[in-house]
């Protein structure tokens, strides 16, 4: 008898204790994978809804486009071929991100969850007028959106980026994945998660976010947008070559290439970066601050178009190294010109170097650092080492 009661108890326990209190089936969830924030611009659907009476008092500050993924199998009879999309976007225009998310609950029965949110893209016009702290406040406070979500800016409309992807792909995942190509191209800035902007936003220091543009059916990483510390607004952009210069300046590259023309032969020369490293040294002499940038890189020849099919001996390699070093230094100078004299924003970590090595001086200048920085002299030293030339030991014919 006792045994039977025990079994009964165990059985009841199985019924009562299994499962989760606040569970919800995955098919009933709207999994957010990306968000695009733009200056208020209502979509066709929204306008029609509004015309039919679906509106509420608001100032039309911005449009939030949420990208959701369609759970596999949730779409009834899926059409074969390129027509089927495995994501869909919904746009809400409102005054706050939170309001927009909750307003979506009037349009869909599915509950949005943010655990898998990968990217937040902010359109240029919005980023120039509303501070980044306001735009990201909801994301950094929310309990399911993780601080690992990556931030990007878009020159143009951010919403368009979320529309573009090859058939069968999801734009948010594609954008996130492109960051993985840092070892293939040095014109990609490191992915910046929300975690890494909280500090700079709070300390009012400048930083950069990857810029992504879109055209027709595809998107492309194109330079970076500079967020100014003082204002928290987008201050301007660095184009692709200036980004390349910034990568060399900070040594943040993991690979890629450096292309130039050998002035002597007029022929193209391509160097594949295996590694790079940079140190920024802050010097203070009689209260005058100056910086010394030292860049080192190792790599190999990827393409040498010199005529004659000559053997690539030490003399040639040394000469080419010099050519490439000058080119890299030129790129760095171009970037420095832009951030010192055009944008007035230290985005390359000069302030960090000063803070670490001369904390007393830093305390005096940190209040207005971006302006102080734009007048500080910087010297450069670039050292390249061509380690090998690949399977072909001569130049092209």
């Amino acid at each position, binding site marked *: 008898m006792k045994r039977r009661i025990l079994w009964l108890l165990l059985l009841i326990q199985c019924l009562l204790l299994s499962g*989760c209190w*606040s569970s919800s089936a995955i098919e009933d969830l709207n999994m957010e994978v990306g968000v695009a924030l733009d200056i208020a611009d209502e979509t066709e659907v929204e306008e029609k809804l509004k015309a039919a009476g679906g509106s509420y008092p608001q100032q039309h500050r911005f449009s939030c486009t949420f990208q959701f993924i369609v759970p596999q199998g949730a779409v009834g009879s899926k059409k074969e071929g390129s027509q089927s999309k495995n994501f869909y976007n919904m746009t809400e225009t409102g005054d706050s991100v939170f309001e927009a998310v909750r307003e979506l609950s009037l349009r869909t029965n599915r509950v949005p969850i943010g655990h898998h949110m990968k990217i937040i893209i902010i359109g240029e016009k919005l980023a120039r007028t509303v501070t980044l702290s306001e735009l990201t406040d909801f994301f950094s406070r929310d309990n399911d959106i993780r601080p*690992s979500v990556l931030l990007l800016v878009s020159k143009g409309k951010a919403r368009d980026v979320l529309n573009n992807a090859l058939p069968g792909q999801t734009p948010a995942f594609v954008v996130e994945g492109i960051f993985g190509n840092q070892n293939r191209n040095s014109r990609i800035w490191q992915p910046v998660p*929300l*975690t890494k902007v909280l*500090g700079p936003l709070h300390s009012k220091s400048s930083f950069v976010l990857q810029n992504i543009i879109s055209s027709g059916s595809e998107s492309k990483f194109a330079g970076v947008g500079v967020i100014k510390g003082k204002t928290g607004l987008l201050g301007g952009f660095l184009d692709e070559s200036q980004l390349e210069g910034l990568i060399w300046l900070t040594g943040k590259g993991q690979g890629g290439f450096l292309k130039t023309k050998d002035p002597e032969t007029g022929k193209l020369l391509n160097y594949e970066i295996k590694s790079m490293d940079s140190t920024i040294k802050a010097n203070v002499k009689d209260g005058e601050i100056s910086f010394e940038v030292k860049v080192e890189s190792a790599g190999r020849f990827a393409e040498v178009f010199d005529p004659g099919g000559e053997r690539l001996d030490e003399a040639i390699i040394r000469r080419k190294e010099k050519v490439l070093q000058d080119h890299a230094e030129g790129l760095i100078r171009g970037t420095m010109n832009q951030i010192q004299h055009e944008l007035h924003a230290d985005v390359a970590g000069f302030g960090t170097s000063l803070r670490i090595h001369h904390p007393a001086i830093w305390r005096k200048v940190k209040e207005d650092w971006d302006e102080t920085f734009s007048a500080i002299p910087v010297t450069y030293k670039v050292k390249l080492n061509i380690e090998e030339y690949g399977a072909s030991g001569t130049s092209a014919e």
Partner: protein
Amino acid sequence: MQAKLKDRITTTEAVIINVNYVLAAGVLTLPRTAVEAAGTSDVWISVILCGLLAMVTGAVIAKLSQRFPGRTFFEYIRFIIGKPLGFLLGISVAAYFLSIASFEMRTVQEITGFYLLEGTPSWAICALFLWVALYLCLGGINAVARMCRLIIPIAWGIFLGVSLLSLEIFDLNNLRPVMAEGVGPVWRALRPTALTFTAGESLLFLVAFMDKPKKVMQVVVGGNAIAMVFYLAAVVLSIGAFSTDGVITRTWPFVDLIRSFDVSYLVFERFESLLLAIWILQIFCTFCIAYYGAALGVSQLLNIKFKHCLYGLLPLIYIVAEIPRSINGLFMMGNEIGNWALIVFGILPLPLLVVAYFRRAGA
């Protein structure tokens, strides 16, 4: 009948209980509170200093307890300062343990409700916590010790694992320069660190249960050193990822640290649920030890059966836990409890030891 002191625990078990008692909700918030006070990244030095300081205060309590073999603080205190004063002090210590238990449970309630089980009513979370703790404590100190020992490999393993994974977003520059503003920031961070890092109090009754009370110093040093590693890891890793300016914006910096990275090369991509699950276990240990201490105190001071005390305190813990009206109230409660601990366990034991010495109380 008073609480049975027939139970005996080994030195290792005592170390484990001590560590598990110290490691609690503080790890999740210390990076913020310490940096808020210091303003610089030097707080890791304060953590080390506090660890050493806690060893000293712990040693004083241990010495005190050693004078009265087989007796807990609640029993021997009247031999030192007389019955009425001893009773008051004993009750205040028992009340301290009770509020620690309440504080830890409320913290779990907040974290679980926010990060893990949104929508589950908080009473459901607390009910499970309270019932399991009651069942465990009814089994005596040995059961508590065994449970602590059981969760260590899981909890510490996962903690170590996620800490290593978080190195992906670690930036050493955020921790430099060291002591650029002198000892000021280190000094300022000592207080908030000490508030979460009071360690000696569990020895007030733990020593009485030890089979070899002579080895109590091992418990003091070992327990504090291990706990210090965890606090150090939490502080260093959080500042390394968020920078000092970022870390003060986070309510639960250490949880947000673990939420800040995705891992694509392991079976799991996200680790915050895992970390929270094991840290709730860890907090549960602290809860049980404090609950046990409170019940033991009441039982020995008022001469009530230990089991009855356990049952009687259970609703009280819940009521105290529900006193703070907001998260700020909860943090304030934590602060007040810490202040209380600083006085009762940081400063008071030394005069007690001196008085005991001159009155020739105890061995």
